């Protein structure tokens, strides 16, 4: 019971203190707000980049072109050889004959149909292929080379050059957002430490009396920790609104995709709730961490 009384009193005192030192609190709240807006934007970017990377990696395939001189036996044995290569997804090695490819192409486009309809099997210049998926997309290059070195393989393509650049760009964006968020969180912690430090100084007399009458360390320190938490949570309100409405707005304007169909945006409903919770949590936790550190540093009890 006593524990709850101490918690209740601490919560009440911390709210009072936020109000009493409002101009000071406002500076911290504003800073938390700006940080969290950027954190929110970074989170949206990260989620989308992650999703696009995942989609890209999922669609990543090696097209293995089989030599025209390969007979049926060679084709079957090639499949076994491909499956034997490390990093090849053994459940996804699909064969497509040149006849099938021709058919698919003719169905997809009238021009192709006109050109290809007179090709018989002998004249068909297309090649039989294997479509191969890999387990680790980062090693797709070496896997393609290994496949290329097999006999009866004329070439193995996976969109080299473009894929690597895209993955590199995604990785870069993810890392940059991460570093930006960490840097801003540190700045916020520093500002909260300062706010709480000033609050501690302005309440020095009160604290010394609390110590004299026998208030425990926890009951002296707790209000300051809660104060930091409240500053963080109050500072999270506007960022949540900005991020939620902002993302809906951007999504509508861009029609759910970026540049082309290659990069699609995640539906707002899929992520805004998660991100809002995350922003509030970061606000609260960063506030608590900042004030806990200030209390440890400046509140000698």
């Amino acid at each position, binding site marked *: 019971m006593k524990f709850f009384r*101490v918690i209740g009193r601490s919560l009440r005192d911390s709210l009072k203190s936020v109000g009493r030192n409002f101009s000071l609190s406002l500076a911290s709240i504003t800073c938390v707000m700006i940080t969290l807006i950027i954190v929110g934007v970074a989170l949206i970017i990260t989620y989308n980049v992650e999703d696009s990377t995942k989609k890209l990696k999922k669609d990543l395939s090696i097209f293995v072109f089989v030599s025209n001189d390969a007979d049926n036996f060679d084709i079957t044995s090639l499949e076994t050889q491909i499956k034997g290569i490390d990093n090849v997804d053994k459940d996804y090695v699909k064969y497509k004959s040149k006849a099938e490819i021709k058919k698919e192409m003719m169905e997809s486009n009238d021009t192709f149909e006109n050109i290809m309809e007179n090709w018989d099997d002998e004249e068909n210049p297309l090649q039989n292929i294997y479509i191969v998926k890999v387990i680790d997309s980062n090693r797709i290059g070496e896997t393609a080379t290994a496949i290329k070195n097999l006999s009866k393989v004329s070439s193995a393509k996976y969109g080299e050059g473009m894929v690597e650049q895209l993955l590199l760009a995604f990785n870069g964006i993810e890392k940059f957002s991460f570093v930006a968020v960490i840097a801003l969180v540190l700045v916020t912690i520093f500002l909260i430490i300062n706010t709480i430090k000033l609050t501690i100084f302005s309440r020095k*007399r009160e604290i010394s009396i609390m110590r004299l009458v026998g208030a425990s360390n926890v009951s002296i320190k707790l209000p300051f920790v809660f104060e930091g938490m409240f500053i963080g949570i109050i500072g999270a309100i506007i960022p949540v609104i900005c991020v939620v409405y902002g993302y809906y707005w951007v999504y509508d304007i861009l029609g759910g995709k970026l540049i082309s169909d290659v990069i699609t945006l995640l539906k707002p409903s899929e992520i805004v709730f998660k991100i809002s919770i995350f922003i509030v949590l970061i606000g609260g936790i960063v506030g608590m961490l900042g004030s806990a550190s200030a209390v440890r540093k400046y509140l000698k009890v």
Partner: protein
Amino acid sequence: MGLIEFKNVTKQYKNGVTALYDLNLDIEKGDFVFIIGGSGSGKSTLIKLLYREEKPSKGTILLGGIRVEKLRNRSVYKLRRKLGIVFQDYRLLPKLTVYENVAFALEAIGEKKSNIKPKVLKSLELVGLKGRIRDYPENLSGGEQQRVAIARAIVNEPRVLICDEPTGNLDPVMSLEIVQLLADINEKEGTTVLMVTHDKDIVNKMQKHVIALREGHLFKDYKKGDYVDEVL
């Protein structure tokens, strides 16, 4: 065994100044003790050691069974709850009323809400300020402010009341009133009172147990009624 015991207590500060040398004291439960001495005699250090604001360099201090010098910082509050402390400068919170200042001490230690009001009113009645509960410290005289500080110190019914020059800022008439109030509390509530003072008139008049310090040493321990004014 007394309520408060100092055994071979020495206190040397970090700057090398020794404030107390090998001090031995024994104070009984319910005693009223004046601690007197000139500047630098170690009076304030003695009581700071008692409420564990300072730690002795050597020796042991016992208060109601607690080994004061062994208390860790985080456990000091357990000792302080057995003590009431009054200072020369009152140390009241100016934005709180008389009632709130006294209640603050109970709220700070997590006292039940329903217990706070009767305890605060009882303690304010004891110091004769029940009629001023809504006043702010700035509207009170020095003597009245000190009464509020005493009410705050006794509201938690401490075993020991420590007063560091409580009359230092008051005129002789008010000083006597405050000391009389402390003597009443000592008598009625059985609270042990330790009062540091340099006001010899009061000490003379009250004729209580007197501990006289000089340059960090125990100069004389006068039992109740034995005190004679002499140059320390």
